[in-house]
């Protein structure tokens, strides 16, 4: 009897142990550090209370970093979801050609971000880039993709969207395929036009998929690091600096561990609040079968 009681705990133990050792404990440590001033080597960690938090909130650079992060995440998720939804509607068909296209658009997902970043840096080169070469064919010349603070964040978003679309499209296609065909037929008999069919039937039926992808997408894009670290290092003029990169930069380039930890705590708070809010508020509206 007691074995039956203990069984579930035994089964989750290894996973929870891993999470505790490698995720929860470090998070705790990070929170601890956020109240201290430390530079790695000094034997003392000086307790500073909330001063890291207050100075962070007054730091114009950090505020811009937050803005960048929200901008990047919001736009990336929005664009990825809308484009891949359209693509899914288009590509959700049988046939070798469609299979090939599905494979092709998914392929960026399998390549490491490091490779992708290098590739895109090259594609987006102002003078020699494939992108400008291509746009040049249409008379658009020399857009300084990564080198102008006006376009740099957008350029990173383009890369993220480009990479994410395939994965999202595939999940959307799966979602579309699980919508029963006959409700479309019912709608046809109800003389429904395409746009109404999309907004009144398809979209609500896809709401769980949308929900899942939005959450996963937001969490993922809040965590963006590699592309920034390789393509822009947060520049030019701080225009692409987002929170994880900022944390890394402060901690390991500028030796401000406490400060970096504080930014980490704030990131966690943002993600946490956001997730809870999203689940509570929107979760209710989502249709589950």
């Amino acid at each position, binding site marked *: 009897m007691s074995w039956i009681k203990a*069984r*579930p*705990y*035994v*089964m*989750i133990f*290894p*996973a929870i142990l*891993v999470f505790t*050792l*490698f*995720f*929860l*404990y*470090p998070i705790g*440590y*990070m929170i601890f550090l956020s109240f201290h001033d430390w530079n790695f080597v000094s034997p003392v960690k000086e307790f500073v209370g909330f001063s890291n938090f207050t100075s962070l909130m007054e730091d114009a650079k950090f505020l811009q970093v937050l803005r960048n992060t929200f901008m990047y995440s919001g736009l990336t998720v929005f664009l990825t979801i809308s484009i891949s939804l359209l*693509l899914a509607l288009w590509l959700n068909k049988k046939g070798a*050609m469609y299979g090939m*296209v599905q*494979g*092709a*658009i*998914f*392929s960026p*997902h*399998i*390549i*490491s*971000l*490091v*490779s992708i970043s290098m*590739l*895109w840096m*090259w594609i987006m080169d102002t003078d020699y880039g*494939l992108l400008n*070469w291509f746009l040049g064919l249409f008379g658009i010349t020399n857009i300084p993709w990564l080198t102008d603070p006006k376009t740099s964040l957008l350029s990173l978003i383009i890369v993220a969207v*480009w990479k994410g679309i395939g994965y999202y499209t*595939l*999940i959307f296609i*799966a*979602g579309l*395929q*699980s919508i029963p065909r006959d409700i479309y037929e019912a709608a046809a008999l109800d003389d429904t036009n395409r746009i109404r069919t999309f907004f009144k039937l398809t979209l609500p039926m*896809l709401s*769980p*998929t949308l929900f*899942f992808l939005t959450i996963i997408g937001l*969490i993922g894009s809040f*965590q963006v*690091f*590699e592309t920034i670290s390789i393509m822009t290092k947060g520049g030019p003029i701080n225009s692409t600096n987002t929170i*994880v990169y900022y944390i*890394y930069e402060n*901690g390991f380039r500028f030796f401000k*561990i406490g400060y970096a930890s504080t930014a*980490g705590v704030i990131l*966690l708070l943002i993600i*946490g609040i956001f*997730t809870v809010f999203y689940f509570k508020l929107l979760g209710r509206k989502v249709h589950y079968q």
Partner: protein
Amino acid sequence: MKKNPFWKVINGIGLLLLICIFALPFVWMISTSFKTLGETMTFPPNWIPNQLLWENFSKAWNSGPFLKYFLNSTIVSVGILILQFATIIPAAYAFARYRFKGNNFFFGVTMVTLMIPTQLIFLPVYLQMSAFGLLDSLWGLILPFASSAFGIFLLRQSFKQVPEELLEAARLDQASEWKIIIKIMVPMAKPVLITFAMFSFIAHWNDYFWPLVMTTTEASRTLPLGIAKLREVDGGVAWNILMAGNLILVIPILIIFFFGQRQIIRAFVYTGVK
């Protein structure tokens, strides 16, 4: 409903364009990997290299102990996968099938880990690994990922969909819980497991950051670091060799992807991650 030929052509062109947008960068990557350094810098770019410089590959391969990197990458990716399977399958089963105190709490804890970027936690983990004496060992690359919140999430979803009667039938057949998991649950969740395996393998095969910080010697380095070494040059980067290196990195994944692609849609239709 009738397709007129004009739209067919437009549709076809659209599809080709899509392939271009998503596949051309790779074509360029491949093409670059065969060029001379000077040719990589010509503008507009040559799509087809003037000559096929196979030696770029051998240069990339010989720029470090690539065989070692390759082995390490394989051991780490596969090792992670095996441990993940070992930890997520029972956990997902317990979360999906048992009612117990703290079920929701522990599942919440699991989900929280999904939200944490590795850049936030590597320092404490580094110190911990050092305390365990596992720094700069393959274990240090494997252990932190020995379980996966995303995997538990996906698998739990698909375990939940197995009808209760099936488990009862098995219990009447005198099957132990262990046997139920292995013989019934796991085979039924196969598409999900394969998909998860693919994602996990790809992610860890390509992982750059973690091996970078956790290793200090070549003995425990993985492929992406070997490739990065080609890039970490004070001065001009040899793009041709770098791209050859990247191709070496990508090819195994490409092969795996080729075999796994069909499973993905099926898995998502099946799990209800929709």
